[in-house]
């Protein structure tokens, strides 16, 4: 009865935090991002289930609370459901995911969806958790008239029954609503009464924990401790792994130097690839540690609580409380952060958030910070076991945040605020982090990073090596050969602009490809210094080399520059797409350049004066 082509399309729907994305991953095997806060599914994703009977396409859509969208994110889902997306037919079937622990509100969504008059399958999720009203699939099915399958999104086999049913739907159709014309409100009330969902507010474990976590005094203290620990850990725990990678790189470099004959090929491999791209690889452990902290905080449900605690501060600078999660995502990378601003209902709030998101310290800046801190800041322990290097890293991240809030304050003066500021943010129940999600998240991060190093960064490094090696120095040259190359000439040409903030031509050369991918700065310095040195001291240990050739004020100025410097080109492209305005992305680049220059200038001159150099 059902044709095999095209595949039957099932739209996966549910309110935010119902565990939809985790179920989608179990169903389709796609490795989609999962997190315990609203707004993770910023674009629709689809996956396929196949059997001998036919094929089913499952489309994961952003979560929604009702069919009246309040955010650009919810609008995506509603427009798709009602067939308002140009060139795209509405889905034929609906898979509605309900969290059994939060059934009462979610039934309202189910009642609204019933009015669409499409075949519905209900997945009753989180069946592993406490369920005081004793709701079962059979009970829910009897009351609502829809077919219901129980699922457990956190277990590897938790979606097996659902998968079977979806595949069987190729020849056993799903039920349609019994009375699609009923008023959703009346239908909802009837269901709630029939299921005996009482109005009494049971005190849950999450609520007891929230009394501490959201406490006016202890809450902010806990938040500060968590953030501080994160940056301490990024520095101290990563050390052994970094030493390991560094030793391997040194060995590879030595071996290649011995094996390859002297000449351009050896120079390209040793100076361009190993000293360049290899040096970037060194920072993988720190990036993974940072992500481990972010993933655990996401998965546990702590992040919206942090947003709650910081909301007063954010509203003080004219930001919406919903800006917190996009801003936090920007610590990984500004691009997902900017995409996540689609959960902000107000256009003005959204634009301000997009403009300041790139000031959050993205993970691509971490290698630059780590290199300079490792080279210039002594690894000593201050009082109470606080590590000085970790402290400096914490300060750099803080400077980014302070800068972002300052800019938000300025921008909000120029744009008219709406009358009532709304937050209406769900604080989901706490969950133990699922180690499978953590492992998967870190593995994806490793792949992304290694692909970047092997792709964009490697190509840029080869280009940089070429520009730094040719043309060869004229006969009787007195300086290092690189100073006569294209890169050296370009650096010298741009030097007057950057000299007032203490940058030498080597740094200027590194800043330019850094616009394409920030980590490249570290690689370029590796190549430039490896080529600049004599043939005998080619080494992958860049830190001691720059420590001996730069002054402390220069290093501090470069750190300050990197807190605010214009983002990579891909960020500017995403800003252009999301705001639909080239002017906005040019403005972003211009104000960041000005801010970075100012910060570096102030830092350089303050440091010169302070250390009396």
């Amino acid at each position, binding site marked *: 009865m059902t044709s095999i082509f095209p595949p039957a399309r099932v739209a996966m729907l549910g309110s935010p935090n119902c565990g939809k994305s985790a179920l989608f991953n179990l169903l389709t095997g796609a490795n989609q991002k999962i997190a315990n806060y609203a707004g993770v599914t910023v674009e629709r994703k689809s996956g396929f289930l196949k059997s001998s009977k036919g094929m089913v396409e499952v489309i994961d859509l952003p979560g929604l*609370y009702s069919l009246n969208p*309040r955010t650009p994110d919810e609008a995506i889902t509603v427009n798709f459901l009602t067939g308002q997306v140009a060139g795209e037919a509405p889905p034929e079937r609906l898979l509605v995911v309900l969290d059994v622990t939060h059934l*009462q*509100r979610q039934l309202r969504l189910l009642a609204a969806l019933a009015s669409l008059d499409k075949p519905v399958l209900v997945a009753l999720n989180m069946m592993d958790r406490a369920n005081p009203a004793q709701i079962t699939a059979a009970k829910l099915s009897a009351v609502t008239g829809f077919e219901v399958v129980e699922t457990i999104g956190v277990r590897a086999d938790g979606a097996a029954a659902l998968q079977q049913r979806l595949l069987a739907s190729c020849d056993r159709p799903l039920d349609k609503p019994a009375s699609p014309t009923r008023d959703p409100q009346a239908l909802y009330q009837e269901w709630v009464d029939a299921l005996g969902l009482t109005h009494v507010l049971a005190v849950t474990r999450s*609520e007891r924990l929230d009394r501490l976590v959201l406490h006016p005094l202890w809450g902010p203290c806990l938040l500060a401790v968590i953030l501080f620990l994160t940056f301490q850990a990024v520095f101290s725990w990563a050390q052994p792994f970094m030493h390991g990678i560094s030793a391997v790189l040194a060995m590879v470099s030595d071996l290649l130097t011995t094996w390859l004959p002297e000449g351009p090929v050896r120079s390209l491999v040793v100076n361009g690839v190993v000293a360049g791209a290899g040096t970037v690889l060194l920072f993988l452990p720190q990036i993974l540690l940072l992500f481990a902290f972010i993933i655990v905080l996401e998965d546990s449900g702590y992040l919206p609580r942090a*947003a*709650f605690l910081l909301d007063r501060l954010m509203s003080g600078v004219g930001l919406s*409380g919903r800006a917190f999660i996009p801003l936090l995502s920007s610590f990984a990378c500004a691009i997902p952060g900017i995409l996540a601003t689609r959960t902000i209902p107000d256009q003005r709030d959204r634009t301000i958030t997009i403009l300041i998101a790139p000031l959050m310290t993205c993970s691509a800046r971490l290698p630059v910070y780590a290199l300079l801190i490792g080279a210039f800041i002594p690894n000593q322990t201050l009082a109470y076991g606080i590590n000085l290097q970790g402290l400096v890293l914490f300060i750099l991240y803080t400077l980014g945040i302070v800068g972002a809030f300052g800019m938000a304050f300025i921008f909000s003066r120029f744009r008219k605020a709406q009358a009532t500021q709304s937050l*209406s943010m769900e604080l989901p129940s706490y969950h133990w982090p699922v180690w499978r999600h953590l492992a998967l998240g870190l593995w994806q991060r490793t792949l992304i990073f290694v692909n970047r190093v092997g792709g964009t960064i490697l190509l840029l490094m080869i280009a940089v090596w070429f520009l730094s090696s040719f043309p060869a120095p004229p006969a009787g040259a007195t300086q290092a050969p690189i100073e006569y190359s294209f890169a050296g000439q370009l650096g010298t040409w741009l030097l007057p602009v950057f000299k007032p903030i203490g940058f030498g031509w080597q740094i200027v050369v590194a800043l330019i490809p850094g616009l394409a991918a920030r980590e490249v700065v570290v690689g370029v310095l590796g190549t430039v210094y490896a080529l600049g040195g004599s043939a005998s001291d080619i080494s992958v240990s860049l830190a001691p080399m720059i420590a001996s050739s730069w002054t402390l004020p220069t290093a501090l100025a470069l750190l300050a520059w990197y807190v605010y410097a214009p983002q990579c080109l891909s960020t500017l492209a995403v800003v252009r797409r999301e705001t639909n305005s080239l002017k906005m992305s040019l403005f972003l680049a211009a104000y960041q350049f000005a801010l970075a220059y100012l910060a570096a200038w102030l830092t350089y001159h303050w440091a010169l004066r302070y250390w009396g150099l």
Partner: protein
Amino acid sequence: MDSSISSDLSDGAVVSLAALAPDRDAMVCGAPRPSLMELGFTPGARVRVIAKAWFRGPLAVRVGSDTFALRRDEAKGLIVKPIPL
């Protein structure tokens, strides 16, 4: 307006959610904004404030099986009736 109402906590009195004492169960009355209704703040629903952030920051409010963070201005517009202890 809020303060005059909240000073009278006898049975039958109504207050805004922003003025409701923490840990006191109450019932939503009147006609809440549609956007709040969609979150479950419907007439008759039980609510409880579980935390108030400092410096007049947001409130964490239990409603049904959910918890939401609402800014004070949003909470001021929601009229509730404390349930006698």
